[in-house]
């Protein structure tokens, strides 16, 4: 059976035991919302993406389970920054999922494009830019594992830029947080979801 990346996304969340997500839709994340109707997950519609991240954070702190927030690319993603940093500083496990512009448009200052992986580098435990639907399931599993466990990020996951991050320089050593923390997944979900998933 052929599945779209969007369908895989919700199935992965269900597989992780997620029952609620907090989010706000937009253009780049719209394919994911389109597939939401096939999922049992309850989506809480927020009024601002910062609120979605705080809700995921509150969910995680109150229950010990991973909180999930969803937003679109660009402003949706940047509105999450304060909430991500809040959760990071208090070691609260959340996974944030945002859209991203099509891979051919990345770096072109496309509409609602921002380098959110770069922006969030020092305030996440790890982040991913997923550009292929067949990488999604593995990435989601890793993301939830990294967010909810005390395992340090694998060295191969750490991008060279992290070595220059403010946190790394302030402590004089590579910041390889091994407490619960934040994982961001940035999805590029093209409008025509024709990728095969076997």
């Amino acid at each position, binding site marked *: 059976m052929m599945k779209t990346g969007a369908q895989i996304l919700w199935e992965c969340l269900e597989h992780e035991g997620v029952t609620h997500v907090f989010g706000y839709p937009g253009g780049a994340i719209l394919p994911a919302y389109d597939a939401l109707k096939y999922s049992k997950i309850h989506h809480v519609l927020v009024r601002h993406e910062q*609120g979605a991240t705080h809700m995921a954070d509150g969910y995680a702190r109150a229950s*010990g389970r991973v909180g999930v927030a969803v937003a679109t690319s660009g402003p949706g993603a940047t509105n999450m920054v304060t909430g991500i940093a809040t959760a990071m500083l*208090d070691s609260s496990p959340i996974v944030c999922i945002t859209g991203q512009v099509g891979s051919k448009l990345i770096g072109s200052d496309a509409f609602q494009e921002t380098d959110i992986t770069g922006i969030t580098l020092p305030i996440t435990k790890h982040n991913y830019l997923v550009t292929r639907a067949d990488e999604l399931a593995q990435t989601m599993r890793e993301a939830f594992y990294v967010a909810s466990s005390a395992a340090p990020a694998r060295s191969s996951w750490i991008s060279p830029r992290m070595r220059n991050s403010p946190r790394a320089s302030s402590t004089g050593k590579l910041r390889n*947080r091994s407490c619960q923390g934040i994982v961001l997944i940035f999805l590029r979900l093209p409008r025509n979801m024709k990728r095969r998933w076997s």
Partner: protein
Amino acid sequence: MIHSSKRPVILLGHGAIVSGAIREVRDLAERAGIPVALTLLGLGALPASHPLNLGMMGMHGEAWVNHTIQEADLLIALGMRFDDRVTGNLKTYAPNAKKIHVEIDPCEINKNVKVDVALVGDLREVLHAMLPKIESIDRSDWLDLIDRLKGDSAVRDIQNLPDSGHLYAAHVINDLWRQARGSNTVVVTDVGQHQMWEAQYYKHEEPRSLITSGGLGTMGFALPAAIGVKVARPEAEVWVVVGDGGFQMTMCELATIVQENLKINIAIINNGFLGMVRQWQEFFYERNYQATPLLNPDFAKVAGAYGIQNATVTQRSQVVPAVQSARQHDGPVLINFQVEQEDTVYPMVAAGAALHEMIRRPSPIVETAADE
């Protein structure tokens, strides 16, 4: 090291809650007779009513808690990270104490405070390994000394001031605690004066019963975070304790509460100021209140616009009835507590000052004289 210590203190942080080491921490404290000071995020990790629980340490910790840390000969730091709000000036921090640090993140070891022993690992697992080796030791001399360190703190407590007709945030929060305690209640606070009063006057008995932004100190956190709390634990009674400034940063989420039909109680501690910033201006900037007085909407009307039950409280006698009415209502409720405008969080360790150099609440006599 623990056995030879005469004046040990456990510094307990958020890690105890995250790792689920609640019972292990209690066993350690009880078996070895060691008093426990908590960080803001550690509150609830040891019941507030526990005889060995000293309370919160740090910038707005009770005076005797900070004095105890400064007098100690051994600090046992469990799942905490020696944040600057907890240590004050590092050069004068617990000068005579050896330090043991149990922490899951190796980057935190020796980052702020140089320690003598570092144990990197999950707190629960480390304590499991440690506990069989802990001997029962009588430390009543040390606990008696801590009792004496309390000195006149109780007399200075705002709770003990005669009712002067003023509505103080401390009264609101303490009354709220008296009403809501014992039940499955979670308090979600924002950042600022009300957050510190909550930490001081709401006695948390359970882990995960206080949700607050500690490290980043994010205003606007409380209202949306409470939504997440209620979704995760629908059976819990959820109270938002939030200032008038922080509430306005994310009050758009009132609509989310209504749309999701969530029973959340909101207590706005409304003093018409960015209170904590005003307090800093009062102490350190010669009362130059630049950009801290707030023009606020009528919060009760704002709630009403969303169809949320609301009340405004200006007198202490109205606090308990308003809280009771909110608890009985089966939908969301917002209460606008119009409290004393220029109230101050005491005690306070100024940023960068030594932990024992606190600005104390003026003694009651001085306060009465000022009132007249």
